[in-house]
């Protein structure tokens, strides 16, 4: 099926799968081809007219996005004719564009700006009145639309037609009055992808709007821990914290997209209420505590651990190695939320590494079932110290709070948390920080049994001490 063909692009030999998209083949081979409407995850529109090429033996230029690779094709987009055409078409794109880059969030990652710098005609002959359209529209789901910046590439309308099949967006009117329009409001759970695929600053995220210039950010490539799907993502961050999560193309798991819930998974990491140091409960108020005192307080008590399902395989393994048979260990699994599978990416099982946890428990000779958790909870006595690893993403706080009511019998209750200090945590005597998914490296196992990588980016306070560090206290 994957027969390869050889073709020439601007005189350079490139190889591609026979019948595959010509534009994609050029891009995959590192060739520079301006394009706005083409997106590998969507159908071909062929409307921006930027990827025009000439082919030997073909009388007229055509867009590479609507062509397929064949053996021996000789294609160029660097001829004077094509270069002039691309420059002219760019000029047409800019005619009714407001060129408000200084106040645009897309600046720095804008297709229009990029090519304008390269191919732009700086002496604009556009002295005529531009077509005015609606500037700031909240179209729902945290997406803002600026119709004047829109270049009508139709990526967004194709997304709502083809990917989510929710049909909220359309292009109304003809000619230069054509305008992206929302029917009522965005309702799909993947709306933030619209912001990603918009090649200009027409669709921006309310969440990210005006918060940070993109050139002050760096990306960490990792895996979403929002559910058991395990989408490949990148987190944009700098020393001040994380700012956004975007999907990374991954053929095997998520293709080009991710769900909106997954976009939220970074929020606890650099939250102002993120627990950063060991803390002690002083009449309901948590104040920094000396770790040595906590260690002293648990000495001699029988340790019981309740682990979460979003830890890495390596964390589980190290933990069991430290704890051995000196403590009872059970697993708290997050309750199901919504449909098992929404047909796109989202899964109701929110336990990012249930499979890894189960494997580690089994290997350690422990029981990871809910029955075992119940047994542990029922056995809690006053001489016990109970460690609860707080799930990193808590979709259902009530369910977790119910768990917390069952540990009250223990005289010493300690939370190991990668996130914010919640009001329900008053049940604990001590809170100890553990690394969030952005502060550790390791593997998780997704719904289909695939190993997914977590990569470290940020580091906060004492969060380098993971659960195995505290597990080691059983040896005190």
């Amino acid at each position: 099926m994957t027969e390869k063909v050889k073709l020439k692009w601007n005189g350079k030999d490139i190889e591609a799968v026979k019948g595959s998209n010509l534009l994609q083949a050029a891009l995959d081979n590192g060739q520079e081809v301006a394009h706005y409407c083409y997106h590998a995850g969507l159908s071909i529109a062929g409307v921006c007219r930027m990827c025009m090429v000439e082919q030997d033996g073909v009388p007229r230029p055509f867009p590479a996005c609507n062509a397929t690779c064949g053996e021996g094709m000789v294609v160029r987009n660097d001829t004077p004719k094509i270069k002039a055409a691309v420059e002219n078409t760019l000029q047409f794109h800019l005619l009714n564009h407001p060129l408000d880059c200084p106040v645009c969030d897309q600046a720095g990652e804008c297709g229009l700006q990029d090519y304008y710098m390269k191919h732009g005609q700086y002496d604009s002959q556009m002295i005529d009145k531009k077509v005015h359209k609606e500037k700031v529209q909240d179209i729902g789901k945290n997406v803002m639309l600026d119709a004047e910046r829109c270049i009508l590439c139709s990526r967004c309308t194709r997304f709502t037609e083809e990917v989510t099949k929710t049909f909220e967006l359309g292009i109304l009117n003809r000619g230069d009055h054509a305008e992206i329009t929302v029917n009522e409001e965005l309702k799909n759970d993947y709306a933030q992808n619209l912001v990603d695929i918009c090649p200009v600053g027409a669709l921006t995220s309310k969440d990210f709007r005006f918060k940070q210039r993109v050139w002050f950010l760096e990306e960490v490539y990792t895996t979403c821990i929002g559910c058991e799907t395990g989408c490949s993502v990148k987190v944009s961050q700098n020393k001040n914290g994380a700012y956004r999560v975007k999907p990374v193309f991954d053929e095997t798991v998520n293709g080009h997209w991710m769900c909106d819930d997954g976009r939220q998974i970074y929020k606890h990491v650099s939250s102002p209420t993120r627990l950063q140091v060991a803390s002690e409960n002083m009449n309901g108020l948590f104040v920094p505590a000396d770790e040595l005192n906590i260690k002293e307080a648990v000495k001699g008590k029988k340790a019981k651990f309740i682990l979460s399902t979003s830890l890495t395989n390596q964390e589980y393994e190290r933990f069991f190695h430290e704890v051995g048979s000196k403590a009872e260990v059970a697993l708290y699994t997050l309750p199901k939320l919504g449909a098992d599978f929404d047909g796109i990416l989202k899964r109701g099982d929110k336990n990012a590494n249930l499979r890894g946890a189960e494997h580690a428990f089994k290997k350690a000779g422990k029981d990871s079932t809910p029955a075992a958790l119940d047994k542990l909870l029922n056995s809690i006595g006053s001489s016990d110290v109970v460690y609860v690893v707080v799930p990193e993403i808590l979709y259902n706080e009530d369910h977790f709070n119910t768990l917390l009511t069952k540990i009250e019998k223990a005289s010493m209750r300690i939370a190991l948390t990668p996130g914010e200090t919640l009001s329900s945590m008053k049940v604990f005597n001590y809170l100890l920080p553990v690394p969030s998914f952005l502060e550790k490296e390791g593997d998780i196992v997704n719904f289909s049994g695939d190993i997914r990588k977590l990569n470290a980016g940020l580091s906060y306070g004492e969060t380098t001490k993971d659960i195995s560090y505290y597990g080691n206290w059983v040896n005190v």
Partner: protein
Amino acid sequence: MSSHSNTHVSHSQGAPFKFTAENLAKYEELLTRYDDVESALLPVLHLVQEQNRWLPIEAIEYVSELMKIPEISIKEVISFYDMFYDIPVARNMVHVCTNITCSMFGGREIYQGLLKHFDTDYLTPTRDGRISLQKMECLGACEMAPCMRINNDYVGPVDLVSAIHKLEELP
């Protein structure tokens, strides 16, 4: 035909829309002509306008439900074609050709003259609700330039006086 305003709020007629029994039968017949439901959209919208003159949001919702076509797709279609109206129009629709041959013979002056005479604007119904005027591109009747369409009938050549006279006769 969108109203050329920048906001795309579909207009409400303040009352629900549904096909009469007779038009529902016509709708069923229309479906038999095509190999899928979507293809019947243009004829169905024509049918709605025959009954309702224009296409308020209530009609869009009705057609969307009836044909299982997303509302936005119907709105796109309405906005694309000059003869679909998403704003209220009058009992009588008058098209004035302003393309080349008709303009050579005063089509544009006739259109402007009619707007002035009837104290109205593009598509806006006259105060008595009788007439909506729409300037149109070539109506395909250049041998009778300048020409007009009054409801479904072509008339031409006309001049401003005879055009006013014809329109004054409308019910």
